[in-house]
């Protein structure tokens, strides 16, 4: 079966890819310090933070999307504030999608990073400090390399999770071709319209893409394996 994509489907793939890359990147940058704090804090309120961070994992995506829609829409706290400042609200926009995916994928980034940082421990950092390494230097030469499998796992999970996102996006983003229509929703639309041919093409591309990604990651993970350190 020859795979041919309509321009709209190509666009949907592009939006999906863009969304996954952007939200994963922002998540990694924001979650690294947060996960470090969570891994090493002795604060009692830590459990509340842990529960909150894990919440997107158990909530139905539609629930998450519904609240986000309220929050980001023209009458919502965030959307309303933006409108009053002369900006557009965020419902049915690509920015809204990014925010939605970030919250949706949060636990998939926090969990591996926190685990990796816990495994790293604080002793190696104390050693590095006595060897004249400044805090930033310690992060890049000790923490990052020791936790690199954690970073890799977090990035892949977040990316893959965003590829398959449906519920949150349909609530927050609507289904605007070229802007907020992602591949998973385009497939749904094709099926609804009984256009199995197009659905097949998109679905197959997603399968191949996801599989190649995971294959590359597991390959890298082997190569990256740090002698003597668990992930």
């Amino acid at each position, binding site marked *: 079966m020859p795979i041919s994509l309509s321009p709209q489907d190509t666009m949907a793939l592009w939006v999906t890819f863009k969304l996954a890359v952007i939200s994963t990147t922002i998540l990694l940058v924001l979650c690294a310090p947060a996960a470090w704090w969570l891994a090493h804090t002795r604060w009692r309120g830590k459990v509340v933070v842990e529960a909150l961070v894990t919440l997107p994992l158990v909530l139905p995506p539609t629930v998450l999307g519904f609240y986000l829609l309220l929050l980001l829409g023209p009458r919502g706290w965030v959307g309303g504030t933006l409108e009053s400042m002369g900006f557009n609200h965020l419902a049915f926009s690509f920015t809204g999608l990014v925010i939605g995916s970030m919250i949706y994928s949060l636990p998939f980034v926090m969990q591996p990073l926190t685990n990796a940082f816990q495994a790293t421990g604080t*002793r190696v950092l*104390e050693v590095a*400090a*006595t060897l*004249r390494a400044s805090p930033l*230097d310690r992060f890049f030469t000790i923490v990052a390399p020791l936790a690199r499998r954690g970073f890799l796992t977090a990035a892949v999970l977040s990316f893959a999770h965003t590829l398959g996102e449906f519920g949150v996006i349909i609530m927050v983003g609507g289904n605007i071709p070229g802007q907020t229509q992602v591949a998973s929703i385009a497939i749904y639309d094709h099926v609804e319209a009984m256009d199995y041919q197009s659905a097949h093409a998109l679905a197959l591309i997603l399968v191949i893409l996801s599989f190649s990604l995971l294959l590359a990651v597991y390959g890298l993970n082997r190569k990256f394996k740090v*002698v003597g*350190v668990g992930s």
Partner: protein
Amino acid sequence: MSIQARFRLERGDFTLDVELQIPGKGVTALFGRSGSGKTTILRCLAGLERIEDARLQFNGDLWQDATFFLPVHQRPLGYVFQEASLFPHLNARNNLLYGFKRIPAGERRVKLDDVVTLLGLETLLDRYPDALSGGQRQRVAIGRALLTSPQLLLMDEPMASLDVASKGEILPYLERLRDELSIPVVYVSHSIEEVARLADHMVLLEAGRALAQGPLQTLLTRTDLPLAHSEQASAVIEGTVAVHHAPDHLTELAFAGGSLLISHQERAVGTPLRARILARDVSVALTRPDASSVLNALQVRISDISDDPQPGHVILTLDAGGQTLLARISLRSCRQLALAKGQTVWAMVKGVAVT
């Protein structure tokens, strides 16, 4: 004094309250039981622990007071932890060079080759930490600290996590360090053997307080301190190798109070050597004991007689040419020989541990 420090801390039921003066040369041992605050003090010196009520000066530079705190990575010190804590993602060479690369080129007085030779690391450089034994790892960790050309070396029980064999492997290196380094070393230990072998000065700690601080030989033999009354009570004699008696497999150690015959030592004549003598291995006689299998008899003067917690025993403090020996003898012998302060007697030494 190169280090002047005052640390006060209350944490749960642990109270730390010490004032320390640590000399700018030689090894100073922080000695005490676990929970006496040794490691906390060392961590405060390094800046790994930041306590509020503290003041710390090193060679006249302020490191910490009520309003100022110099961060760890800006203090010119080397720190050896209890476990080697090598960076697992770097091989031995890159572990060694981690700190070296981070100091200005002009301040690098210690070079990789020096450390490799000093600590015998020639064959280990390309190995990763998980392919090294405990003793080898600790040697790399010591070398790594030395390669920052520190002005102060802090060591937190560097042998505590090692088995007996690895300890035996590390000790000679530590002794070489003591003899070849010109910087002060602060060494935390709860083993009096280790302290007697390595230290020149000692801070005696108990429950967060410094009971006493001063030269090792003085503190070991001060009868108002618990050390002189412990089962391991001992004195350290410092002398030089005088002559080897090869056929008898003996080496003669000379010092102002006489000479001691010890088992043969592979050291050149004239090298300084320390001998540790346990109080329980010393007995006294009024006349020179000619018919005895004991090799060593020294003429000494009794400078003090004090009660021993062990029932029926006393501790004699003996002056041997300016150096002090301890003897634990029975109360009965003390009475029968009518020993008294100022009296000259013969000390018979049954065992000498060379350090």
